[in-house]
Each structure stands twice: as C-alpha cells, then as structure tokens.
C-alpha cells in the first residue's frame, strides 16, 4: 500500500510539471517575437529595488505604529473605566464617617447597583449624601470599600453564616417539598376555590378582598390607562 502511494505521488507531480512546462512554452511562444530584449539599466533596477525596500520598511513601520496606537488607546480606555469605578476620595471619606455619626434612626438597607450609584453621582455631584448611605453591590450587605487594584474590603460578619452543607440540606428539603414535581398552588387559589364551593358562593379572593392581588390590579390599571391614551391619540 505504501509503495502505491509513493508511486502515485511522483506520477501526479510529473503530470503537474508537464502541465507547467507546456504553459511556459505557451507564454514564451506568445511574447517572444523577433523583438530585442528590453533594456533595463542598472540605476533603474537599483532604484526600484531601493524603492521596494523602502516601501516594505515603511509599511512595517506603519503597521507597528498602528498597533502601538491601538494599544495606547486600549490602555487609556481601561484607565478611564477604572477611574469611573472608583468613587472620588472625598465621598469615600464621607462614607467612612457617616456610620459612626449615624444614630439608630430607621435605616433601610438600600442595595443599589453600581450603575445606579454612578448615575446619581453624575447628577448630584456637590455634597449629595443620600445616594451613598449604603453603597453596596447586589448580594452583599454592609459597606464594601474598593481599593486600587483588585482588592475589596468587607466584614466577615456581614456574610451569611450558613455553611455550604447546611445550605445543601436546606435546598434538598426545599426542593423535595416545594420544588418541581411537588404540585403546589397558591393560597389565593385555595381560598378562591373555597369561596366558589362554599355555602355562600362568592368571587375569587382577589376580587372579594381589596388587599389581594395588588400587583395584578396595579398592572391592569396601567394597561387600561395606556389603552385609553392610545385611543385618544389617533382620534384627536
């Protein structure tokens, strides 16, 4: 088998070579007439060689410059992003002093996103403290300081103290009782069914009791207003 392969390659290459040779012959036959060969002086060829070399050098230089430029721009962008993430120093100082001054007034843990903090910083730059009562990232409670580089400081006590084993056990029980396949329904449904089948038949809970289903009702109100608006605009 191997011999066959060897044999086939030379034959194929032979074929290829013969094809080339016939082509060359053709070209030569076309161009070669009774004309004399072209005269190219030494200076010209030298100049052209030099030119081509210069071009090559220039292109390589340009490419290098382009790359440098790109890299520089990227670096600048990163620097700017980093600057954006860090709050200005005076606001960090304010955050430090604010918890110590604070008394036991109602403190709601405002867990705001970083983007939101940034926007409010832009809007209320001069001495607006309210946005930064608790500058937190979602999922963490308490103060987090960001230092330069990739370090952040947070208190261990603020983290939840359930360890992973306890969490898996709680997840197991939650999944078995309330997870998929547990066929659960809502309290609303159960009470509505009781209303429907009871001795005094009445409507579902969200219609009987004003406090139930407030989100759905609010949404329905909003949609109704939008629809009325839509109807007004084309007609007016």
């Amino acid at each position, binding site marked *: 088998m191997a011999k066959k392969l060897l044999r086939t390659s030379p034959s194929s290459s032979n074929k290829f070579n013969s094809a080339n040779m016939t082509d060359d012959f053709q070209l030569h036959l076309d161009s070669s007439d009774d004309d004399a060969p072209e005269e190219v002086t030494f200076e010209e060829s030298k100049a052209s060689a030099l030119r081509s070399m210069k071009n090559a050098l220039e292109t390589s230089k340009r490419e290098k410059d382009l790359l440098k430029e790109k890299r520089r721009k990227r670096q600048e962008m990163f620097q700017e992003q980093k600057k954006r993430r860090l709050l200005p120093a005076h606001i960090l100082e304010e955050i430090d002093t604010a918890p110590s001054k604070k008394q*036991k007034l109602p403190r709601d843990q405002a867990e705001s996103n970083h983007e939101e903090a940034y926007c409010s910083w832009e809007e209320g730059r001069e001495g607006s403290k309210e946005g930064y009562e608790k500058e937190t990232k979602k999922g963490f409670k308490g103060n987090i300081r960001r230092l330069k580089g990739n370090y952040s400081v947070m208190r261990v006590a603020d983290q939840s103290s359930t360890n992973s*084993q306890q969490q898996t056990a709680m997840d197991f029980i939650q999944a*078995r009782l*309330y997870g998929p396949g547990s066929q659960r329904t809502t*309290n609303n449904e159960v*009470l509505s069914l009781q209303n429907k*089948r009871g001795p005094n038949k009445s409507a579902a809970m969200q219609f009987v009791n004003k*406090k139930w289903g407030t989100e759905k009702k609010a949404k329905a109100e909003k949609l109704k207003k939008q629809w009325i608006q839509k109807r007004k605009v084309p007609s007016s």
Partner: protein
Amino acid sequence: MGEFKVHRVRFFDYMPTAIRAMAFNAHTERLALARMDGSVEIFNFTDHYFQEKVIPGKDSRSIESLCWVGGRLFSAGLNGEIAEYDLENLRPKYSLEAYGGPIWTIISNTQGTQLAIGCEDGTVKLFEVLEEHIQFERNLDRQKGRIISLSWHPSGTHIAAGMMDMIRVFDVPTGHAVQRLLVDRGFGGSKSRETVVWSVAFLSDHTVVSGDSAGKVQVWDGHTGTLVKTHLVTKWDVLALSVSKDESSVVAGTSEGTVIQFQFIAPTLHQQQGKEWVRTRTFKNHTHDVRALAEIETAIVSGGMDTHLVVRPLLEKFDEKSHASGLRKIHFPHRNLVSCAKKVGLLLFQFPGQLELWRLGDSDGHGKPGDRLPLERMPEKLLLLKRKGEDHICCSALSSCGGWLAYSTVSCVRIYRLQTDNNNISITKVSKLPKALHSAHQLCFSSDSSKMFAASSQSSVLVIALTQSECKYVHTLKPKSGSRQPIHLMTTSVDGKWLAAANSDCEIHVYNLQKLKLHCIVPVYGSCPSAMGIHPTTNNLTVVHADQQVNTIISQLYLLQDWSRKLQKQGLHNVWLDRDTPVTHVTFNSKNPNQVVLHDMHMFCIIDQSLPLPDQKTQFYNQMTLRSLSEQERPSHLHAFKICKTFQDLLCVSLLDDQSLVVVERPLLAITSQLPAPVRQKKFAT
C-alpha cells in the same frame, strides 16, 4: 356600659412562624414545640393548654427535631449542633457540635440514657446522657445516604433509620446494620426521584411503620425484613408519624394537611386473631403541610406550615361530650405583643426582629354606635427599631408617657429615651446599663416612668431607676419561696406603690415598692395566671387564670374580694368557661371604677362589678337582646359580663386615658395570605 370611640388597628403585620417539630413529655405533661425561626414553646397540657414558656429563636439556629430526656429538652438542627435548653432561664444551656454535618433527627431511648442523632453524612451517632451535659459515645456503621429519621426499639437494642429509598435496622450493641428494607418509589413521574422515608416508628413487636415521600404508610416486619402492608394514603408526602403509648394507634401527617389514624385491630368482628393495621380516621384540620405530630393519651396534637397548633381529642376516650373533648386551635401566643402608651396614644409592636412604634390616628367626628368615623390624621409609623445581633427579641415595653422604650433578648437589654417634638421624634440609646441587667424575661415601666422593672432569673425582679438620660440599679426584689421558674407576667399600680409578678409555678408575689420588699404571696390557685392588672384607685389585683377563672384580690389584706368570693361560690357561666383562648390583657376604666376590661382572641369583655352575676340559666351573650328591650325592662336583664364580638382575632384591647378603646386585630386571612404554597388539590367542578 357607655359608648367608646374605638381605634380599630389592623396595621400590625404579625406573622407567626411555621411549626417544625414537637415532643410530648408524658411525665410532666408538657408539650415542647419548635418553630422554623428557632424558637421553642412549652405548653402545659394539664392547664388548658396554656403556653407557659417561650424561648426566643436565633438567626443562625435551625431546629429540625426535639427530644425530651426526663425533664431535659434537647434539640438538633441543620447547623450540625445539639442544644440543651435551660427551661428555668429560658435560653439554651449549651450547644454541642456533632461533626456529622446537618442533623436531621434526634431521639432518645426509653431508659433515658442515650441519645441518637441522624446526620447528613450517613452516620447515626450515639451520645451518652450525663448529669450536666452529653458526651459522644460512638458511631454506628456509616451508610451511603443521609439519615432522615430514626426510631428506637422500646428495648433499646435496635434502631430503625429511614434514609433515601430504604430503611436500615441497626443492632445497637454491635453497631452493624442487620436489615435493609427497600422502599418502592412512587408511580408515574416520581419514579425518577428517590423516595425519602420522612419518618419511621419502631414498635415493640419489631414492626416498623414508615411514612415516605411517595405518600405511602408501610408496615414492615423488622425480624424478617419483609413488607406486611402498604397503605397509599395521599398523592403527596407523608411527613410525620407518631405512635401512641400503648402502641395500638399510629397517626400520620401529610402534605395535604390531613392527619390519618391507623389502629391495630381485627378487621372483622368475628375473628379474634389476625389483628392488623387498619386505616380508621382522617382529620382535616390544617390547610398546609403537617410537619409535627404527637399522639398523647387522649388527643392527637398536630402542627405544620399553617402555624397553628391543633389539639384533637379522641372522642372514644371521653365518656361524655364536654369542654375537654372539643377541638382546640391555638393561633396566637398567650402573651402580649403590643404595648400601649395610654397617655399619648402610641403603640409599640414587638416582632422577633424589630420593634415598630406607631402613633394612632385621630378623628373628631361623632356618630351613632356602629358608625365608621372619618380619619382626620392617619396613623403613622414613627419608628422602626431593628435589633442588633442574632438573638430574637423576647420582650419589650413602652412607658405610658411614651418617653421610654426598652427591649430584651437573651443576651442583652436595651433602653432608649424617646423625645417627640411636634412632628419629629428622636431616640437616644441609654449607654451605660447596670451590670446586673443583662437579660430579662419581662419588662415593665412604672406609671410615672421613674422606674423600670426587669424580671430576671429565679423569679427575681430588678428595679432600675430612670433619670433624664441614664439609669441606675436600685435593688433586686426576691421571692421568699425560692422558686426557680421564670416570671411571665408583671404589672404595677398607678400610684407606684405596688408591683405584682407571676411566675410559671402559679405563684403571684406582690412587692411593696416604697419599702422595696416582698409584701405578700397571693394564695396559690391551681391554674397559671394568664393576665393581671392592678386597679388604679382601689389597688385591688385582678387576676385571670388559664382556666378562665377571674379572681380579685385586695392587696393590702391579700384576701379575695367579696365580689370574687361570690363569683367563686356561684361559679362562672358555662359559656365563659367554654372559651378556648385565654385572656391576655386586663385593664381598667378610670372614669368608672367598677369596670374591668379584658379580652381574649375572639371577644372583649367589660365586667361591671356593680351589676349582678349571671347564673347558669341566664343568657350570657345578651347585648343584642338588651338593645331590643325597652328602658324599663333592661335593668332586670343586666348582668356583669358584657361581651362584644364585633372585633375578631384580637391581639390587644386597651383603654387610653381619653376614654377611647384601642383594638388591635390581626385577621387570620391576612396571615394565610403570606403562608407558603399549599398543595394543589383537584376538586370536582372546579
């Protein structure tokens, strides 16, 4: 009786926690109940199911199972620790890390010498119960799956362990697993999920009864390891099992909220032999999962995710239908969670995690009885005070002038000074507290807000003097009887001379505050006091007990007042005695010294001591009939107990200084709306 303007308060978002585990101690007749937030409650079943003690929970504590050994209470939870509770100081004595991962269950043997726990890592660990603590003894053979439930054979030689898809029977002396009982999976879609054996029961004839997540209750022969009978009880899980003491009845609790009883009887009357486990009764007293179950001698006690405790007495154990054989549901705690500042109309709501201070709304209008008056000023939340640390708040108090606020957990006491300007409120913490004041079971302010009383260990009361912004320890009032039980009720007189304190031993001590010593011990009545109050002018002490008895004691002479003697002789009306919730608050009407206002969960009552007492034949709830009678006929039909049932699910009824009533309601429907999801049951025609 008079007309009252009523502040109907429904903005107290009290939310009870679900019941997770319970254990009944047959010797002391106490039921211990564990809730999902880590709190433990002790109910006295001899005293009308009164909630005697409450041990507050903790954020990091989780309780999965409770167990009594003699008079000691042990619990185990998913944080991997076994805790023993100090029932005299209402706190955990110590907690021991078991090093087996989360613990699912804890049981003790009948001799009371050993404890066994089932852990997440598949080991059953044995602990020796010593005098003051417990000590690890050894592990039984480690298994591959988690151990969810355990049951000890009454002889102490074998333990049955319910795991995933199987039950293992261990021989305790050697520690080896001697039997393996394989539990079938459910049919249909649940074939791919493992069956969890949620609970097992080991009977003395080596029968093992198991309840699993496929909804089956199975009876096995523990000697041969074979299945004897399967009862498919529900489509959802069977979460709890309990065996009666004589082993003739087993009850199973399911996710549907039903409790099913199986009895060991002969299926046909003629055959005497061939007794088997037959499904007999089904009780549907719950709307959500039943997770805790106990079968005591005469009743079945169940509790679950719908947060109320249900005691269902078994009718065959009673000769005649009486009050004791009726169904009891315990929804609300038997203590006051609302404090009222009578002079300024402020309310303090106690939650496990925070305190809320509200100012009542105001209305100027007048109207007929039954009208709803328009609000001119809405009630507003003045303050939300969150506790620090992990321990839950166990008691709180607000002074009647509204200037002082205090709360206590098991580890600390905090006192705050409140100042209200027109619309602003400022709160300052009192920083240096006396060293003796590190935790209190009850807190109470004197009516002129100059002193605070804290009930601490061994039924003693600490007296703290309050000045403008600091507090000083004055004295400790100690009872002579040397009782070690905690105080659960305290009340002071309006003139600041007397303090009455009641503890769980049913003792009431009256202290003279001017001389700072014990004045007298009220004659002991067999039932625990559930509410107390000192009259503003006559200084008589009115006590309502858990068995609904109302006693009025003249504190100077510590004798029963004549009225009270008459009441005891005549006996209370049957309708009054049939009520199933205890009175939790007693207050007085300053304008009418004969009137006493008290309430329980379903009604509030004004007792007028100047009117005649009702005898057994008169109609008790006679307010409606009185209204229909004419002026001349009324006086002959009046009796002392005037009951109003307009307001339901009451947490507190109090009388402000301006003669308006404050009624704090918590509709049970609002609690139901926040419970976790119930199972979906397909009913016909829906």
